[in-house]
């Protein structure tokens, strides 16, 4: 075996991804894995720069320029074929007229293995690349399990939150849901109208026809309210027969009054129950967030309650506005008597 032959054999075993360059920068010998990168085409005899680009250091225009960079870190890229970047180091050996360029895939390992269909046999036994691939795969499997767990927990959290924010009978928002929605509207400076609605004659239905009839009424009222409002509005049941509707972006009193009128008419539709027809109505008190310099949930609800009380006093099935700060807490007489 000549000196060259055993050196090449040693390099092939220890570092299958290497090139040996002669003084003119031509490839004297290429490791077996280099052949895999060029799909079996031989690169021996070719100028290094014909087959591989040297991207770092800058300004390498002739392969023999690399002799001046012995022992330094190189960045290289294959010419042609799937894009593959390599990290390398050049070592000047012999009488200084031979350059051994050892290469590695570095962090581009996964892509390179996929692009060139490499196998364990393409790596030195001592090369930890295979362990790195193992680790990449193990970590992504574990990450996948964690992500799925997080997704399930997130769904559980979401549905628990939904349950905490909604009324189990009607599916409408409950007091917590209403508070959260109002806080959101106030925090984002979104104007809205708040209707406080109290059913009339509900107690009578409950007393005469029983709680099941009462529940049927509440469900029918809830669906009437959903029907008469838009998707973005919030309908909440905050007590036995007490409801609040937030009408987002609505600040026009005549329009609100028309909505209230429709709501009352819709709620007054008799509900069939066990052969009987149960009939309730409602009174509505409305406030507008625009009437407050700084809208406050409790204040708005209290004022809407005052307007509601005024509506009840006016003979039920009636809608009243609260006139806000400027009206010094007075209840306006805008609106119509539906009694």
């Amino acid at each position, binding site marked *: 075996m000549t000196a060259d032959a055993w050196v090449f054999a040693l390099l092939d075993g220890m570092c299958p991804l290497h090139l040996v360059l002669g003084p003119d920068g031509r490839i004297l010998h290429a490791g077996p894995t280099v052949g895999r990168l060029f799909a079996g085409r031989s690169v021996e005899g070719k100028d290094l720069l014909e087959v591989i680009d040297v991207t770092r250091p800058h300004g390498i225009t002739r392969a023999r320029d690399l002799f001046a960079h012995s022992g330094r870190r190189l960045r290289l890229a294959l010419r042609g074929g799937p894009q593959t970047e390599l990290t390398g180091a050049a070592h000047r050996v012999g009488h200084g007229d031979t350059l051994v360029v050892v290469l590695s895939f570095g962090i581009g390992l996964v892509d390179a293995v996929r692009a060139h269909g490499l196998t364990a046999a393409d790596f030195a036994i001592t090369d930890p690349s295979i362990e790195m691939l193992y680790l990449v795969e193990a970590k992504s499997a*574990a990450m996948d399990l964690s992500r799925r767990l997080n997704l399930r927990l997130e769904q559980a959290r979401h549905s628990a939150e939904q349950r905490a924010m909604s009324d189990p009978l009607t599916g409408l928002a409950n007091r917590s849901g209403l508070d959260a929605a109002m806080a959101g509207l106030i925090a984002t400076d979104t104007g809205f109208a708040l209707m406080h609605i109290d059913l009339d004659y509900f107690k009578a239905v409950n007393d005469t026809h029983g709680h099941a009839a009462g529940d049927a009424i509440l469900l029918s009222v809830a669906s009437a309210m959903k029907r008469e409002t838009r998707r973005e509005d919030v309908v909440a049941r905050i007590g036995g027969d007490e409801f609040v509707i937030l009408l987002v972006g609505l600040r026009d009193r005549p329009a609100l009054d028309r909505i209230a009128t429709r709501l009352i008419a819709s709620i007054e539709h008799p509900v069939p129950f066990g052969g009987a027809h149960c009939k309730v109505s409602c009174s509505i008190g409305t406030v507008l967030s625009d009437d407050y310099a700084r809208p406050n949930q409790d204040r708005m609800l209290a004022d809407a309650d005052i307007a509601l009380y005024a509506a009840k006093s006016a003979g039920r099935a009636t809608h009243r506005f609260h006139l806000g700060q400027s009206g010094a807490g007075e209840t306006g007489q805008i609106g119509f008597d539906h009694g």
Partner: protein
Amino acid sequence: MYGLINRAIECFVTETYGEAVWLRVAARAQPGLRRIEAMLDYPPDLTMRLLDALSQDLERELPALLEDLGTFLVSGQGMVAIRRLLRFGGCEFLDFLTSLEELPGRARMALPDLDLPGLDLLDEGEGCYRLTCQAGMPGYGAVMVGLLRAMADEYGALVLLDYGGEAPDGAETVWIVLVEQAFAKARAFELVRQ
């Protein structure tokens, strides 16, 4: 990281014996238990309670069930991750067998909490090997029998396997005879998942 092992038991029972058996086994092992989360911690003794409950429910001996579990870990539906990770052990069955001693280290590399018992492989000559599973996880040796059987299929190797039982110190022995390394075509394996 006991969740991972318990979850594997859940998958095995559900796929092999059905959901109803799993729900009975889970409830018997721990009242109220329905599902296992792979990435959550469970009491260390839950694994054994699950296995005992399964053995009682099916009226089958535990070692035989554990062998089936070991086979399921490699060849069961949805077990591609474990199968692939094991294939990193080597290109041929013998490489894989030799790499078994690294298994606890490899498991820890993937999941630092996953503590598997140590494994020692002894070459007894003439293609015969003795695998000693150190104490720590009762029944681990029986699981290894099933797992090795499935991995031999993966590699296309012809092997004879025999569970040697448990020594007083808790170590378990598995006898392996490698009859032919390239008996059938190995299942394709690429280093990077496509």
